[in-house]
């Protein structure tokens, strides 16, 4: 690896097999998609708080067809909701988060020159890029982008007659998703094999930083569940394009009687949620890993209960694969199954509680240094508690009857996996930016970014619980059709106000990011005084990560403020002192 090939622009930035560049490619693509997805949400929030009112911005972006006179078209509303969900869940929080940090941190933190297969890794990015292009193209097709919700339940998603977005837009959505799944499988294979095989000398599994554990577990559930989504999508493609009846039965649509009999839309839901629920943890686990690392470094304390943290993540990952039915309590499922799924679902609260208490104990008697990354990590704990608790209501089949598919659900998952994961991602970006680009991000802009985000995000999502408890269903173009929701206008206005604020401040982050790439102050090699191996590598980006030998590992990653040591951190490659015991 040390033999340097001549780098041209193409091999360096485009068909690059270096894990660090691929990570940046994922990050920047994810950020771009994040801006698009977030902007969509602001567009439909305008309609929700001011139904039927005209907004220049809507007409400007959507044109006469989808916002005649500046009023959002109901078809376009559903498309925006669908694409917002798809983009945020898959593009930003799956590929943007895992793709970035798995690629960046795995080789650097385990002490490897690169991924097991640089070629597969490059392929993974380019499949993702292709998926991105297809998804973006679908925004511009004549009949509109997919609009059956990000869960694309058939028959709505299977029949172009049912909704205009189920035409070409839905086809492109499915193609885009198929490419995306291939991309994340290729990525996942690589992450698993790299972690299992390419650890440097001394890096036993019990010395792995929690980030790596989280990414490993994420990759495993990804490899096991994404193929099922592919199978699910394949059958949907056949139903849409070739007239099979896997999901379709006894349908009359627009006065036309379809020939399909014997299919079952519920089958789709089972297959979809078999991925769909683990997907939540594919999003959340990397954030848990990043936060653990950031929190330990910045409170200058070892993460409390390392083994319990790993065990909890494994338990969460395992349970996540057997709880999918809680999305289907009101599909008329067998009541006994309903009980089983309630049981397994609520069990997830136990490892989650362990994690929260371990985080709190990590902070206890720490010496907390408030970097922007640390603020986001603490914010993560706050949202993880707030959002996690309402899960107790939604996971309970009896309670779910009345809050299923209401805004209560929207509030819950945006806080527990949307905000938590994005906070984890921000924490990661702020923390590892000096490593990635050799420069620091501006601290003051970072503080501003955190505080406005924190306030605005709770301002958007906390009130949604009240909408839900008032019985307001999600994905309603307007709630003005029902007098019972008339008094909810205030809440909707509050939400929209904060969503605009929260959206704008993200632009500040983007600005800070790009400004700092070029103009940020130069960073030291180990600016946070951190223990993990990546900080032993030089600031300059080189192929193979370390100029000479790869450092070997002598201790775990969390020797912060260990009594009897010279400094309040001891890097992983420092041998144990005489008489010193490992934690």
């Amino acid at each position, binding site marked *: 690896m040390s033999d340097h090939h001549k780098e041209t622009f193409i091999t360096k930035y485009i068909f690059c097999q270096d894990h660090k560049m691929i990570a940046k490619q994922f990050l920047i693509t994810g950020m771009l998609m994040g801006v698009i997805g977030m902007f969509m949400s602001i567009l439909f929030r305008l309609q929700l708080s001011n139904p039927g009112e005209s907004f220049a911005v809507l007409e400007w972006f959507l044109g006469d067809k989808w916002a005649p006179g500046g009023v959002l078209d109901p078809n376009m509303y*559903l498309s925006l909701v669908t694409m917002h969900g798809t983009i945020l869940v898959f593009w930003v929080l799956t590929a943007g988060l895992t793709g970035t940090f798995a690629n960046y941190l795995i080789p650097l933190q385990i002490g490897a020159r690169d991924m097991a297969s640089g070629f597969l890794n490059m392929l993974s990015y380019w499949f993702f890029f292709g998926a991105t292009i297809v998804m973006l193209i679908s925004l511009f097709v004549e009949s509109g982008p997919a609009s059956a919700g990000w869960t694309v339940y*058939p028959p*709505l998603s299977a029949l172009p007659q049912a909704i205009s977005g189920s035409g070409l837009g839905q086809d492109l959505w499915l193609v885009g998703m198929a490419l995306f799944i291939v991309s994340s499988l290729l990525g996942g294979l690589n992450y698993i094999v790299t972690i299992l095989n390419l650890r440097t000398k001394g890096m036993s599994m019990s010395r792995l930083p929690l980030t790596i554990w989280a990414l490993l577990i994420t990759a495993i559930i990804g490899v096991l569940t994404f193929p099922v989504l592919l199978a699910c999508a394949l059958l949907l493609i056949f139903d849409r394009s070739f007239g099979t009846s896997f999901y379709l039965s*006894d*349908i*009359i*649509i627009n006065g036309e*009687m379809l020939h399909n009999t014997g299919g*079952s839309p*519920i089958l789709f839901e089972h297959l979809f949620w078999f991925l769909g629920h683990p997907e939540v943890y594919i999003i959340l686990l990397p954030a848990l890993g990043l936060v653990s690392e950031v929190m330990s470094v910045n409170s200058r*304390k070892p993460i*409390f*209960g390392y083994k*319990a943290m790993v065990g909890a993540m494994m338990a969460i990952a395992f349970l996540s694969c057997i709880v999918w039915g809680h999305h289907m309590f*009101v*599909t*008329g499922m067998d009541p006994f199954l309903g009980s089983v799924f*309630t049981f397994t679902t*609520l*069990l997830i609260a*136990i490892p989650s*509680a*362990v994690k929260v*208490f*371990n985080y*709190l104990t990590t902070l206890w*008697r*720490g*010496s907390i*240094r*408030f970097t922007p990354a640390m*603020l986001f990590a603490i*914010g993560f704990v*706050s949202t993880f*508690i707030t959002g996690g*608790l309402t899960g*107790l*209501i939604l996971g*309970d089949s*009896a309670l779910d009857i*009345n809050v*299923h*598919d*209401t805004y209560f659900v929207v509030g819950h998952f945006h806080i527990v996996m949307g905000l938590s994961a994005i906070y984890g991602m921000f924490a990661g970006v702020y923390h590892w930016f000096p490593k990635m680009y050799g420069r*620091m*991000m501006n601290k*003051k802009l970072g503080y501003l970014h955190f*505080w406005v985000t*924190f306030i605005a995000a*709770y301002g958007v999502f*906390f*009130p949604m619980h009240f909408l839900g*408890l*008032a*019985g307001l*269903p999600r*994905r309603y173009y307007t*709630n003005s059709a029902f007098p019972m929701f008339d008094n909810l206008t205030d809440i909707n206005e509050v939400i929209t106000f904060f969503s605009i604020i929260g959206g704008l401040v993200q632009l500040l982050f983007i600005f800070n990011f790009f400004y700092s790439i070029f103009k*940020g102050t130069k960073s030291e090699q180990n600016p946070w005084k951190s223990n993990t191996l990546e900080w032993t590598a030089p600031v300059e980006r080189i192929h193979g990560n370390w100029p000479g030998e790869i450092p070997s590992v002598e201790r775990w990653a969390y020797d912060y403020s260990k*009594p009897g040591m010279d400094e309040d951190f001891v890097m992983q490659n420092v041998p144990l002192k005489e008489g010193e015991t490992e934690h």
Partner: protein
Amino acid sequence: MTNILIILVVFLLLAALVQVIRVNELLSELKNQDLNKVTDKDNKIQATLFFLIAGVAYLALVLWQFKNWGPFLLPPASSVHGAAIDSLMNFTMGLIIFVFFITQPILVWFVYKYRKTKTKSAYYYPHNNNLEKIWTIVPTIVLSAVIFYGMSVWSQITNADTSESTVIEVYAKQFNWIARYSGDDNTLGAANFRLVGGKNTLGVDMEDIKAADDKITREVHLVVDKPVLLRFRSQDVIHSAYLPHFRVQMNCVPGMTTQFAFTPTQTTAQMKQQEGEDFEFILLCNKICGVAHYNMQMKFVVETQEEYDTWLTGKKTLSEKLLTQK
């Protein structure tokens, strides 16, 4: 023109921002300090901000929302099982609010108290098995209670005795609802989607003798305190029949029949007295079903037996409606 102006303004803002940062950087260079180094002053400010915003303001605003928006929430359930759901909800809600108001203040307090200062250093504390056991076991015990309580309510709802229930079909299609009463025999006639056409909007099989006395309506009337069994079908895509006031929800899936049994306990008149004159029981669609998803509704009326009888006898049976034409 406005577009150009907007772009111009954006550029000016960006340039201004860059200048502000440059000036900041130059100043700190003059003072010979690293702009992005986290100082003790930063720690103090951020910790205090965290205390004020995430601690005081956030928790106060949560309380404020409960106080101000609490009245907008659904009124107490108007059905027998709904009351059980409500108590379970109150129990769970009480529990999570309790945990919320313990853990969030702990978080805020630790973050504030243990901020970095010159004098304090961190305490090396990698693990404590007893502590970890405590917070595995205590949540397990609490959750067992939640799970057990939840399951018992769930089985009470799903195993409801329907032998005495009035059977009513609720048929969903883009974008409205149709109801079918099962008539004197309390049994719905068979139906098949291939028979849908003309006046036979639900595809009822008129050769089935049980179909003759079925009645099709555009509103559902129920008798107070009398159990009812709703059976759901859909014509096109998945819909979800959602009756928030009764705590009833069930998906309507094309190709299959689903059902939900409940007993209303409040008449519409009683609810109007309690909630205001505009109150109606409403059936909403709660599964994205197409462009007019947001406006797919049907009125439910709960009334006394006499009112109900008067209303229902006025309706034509299916045999009168469909067969007399021939």
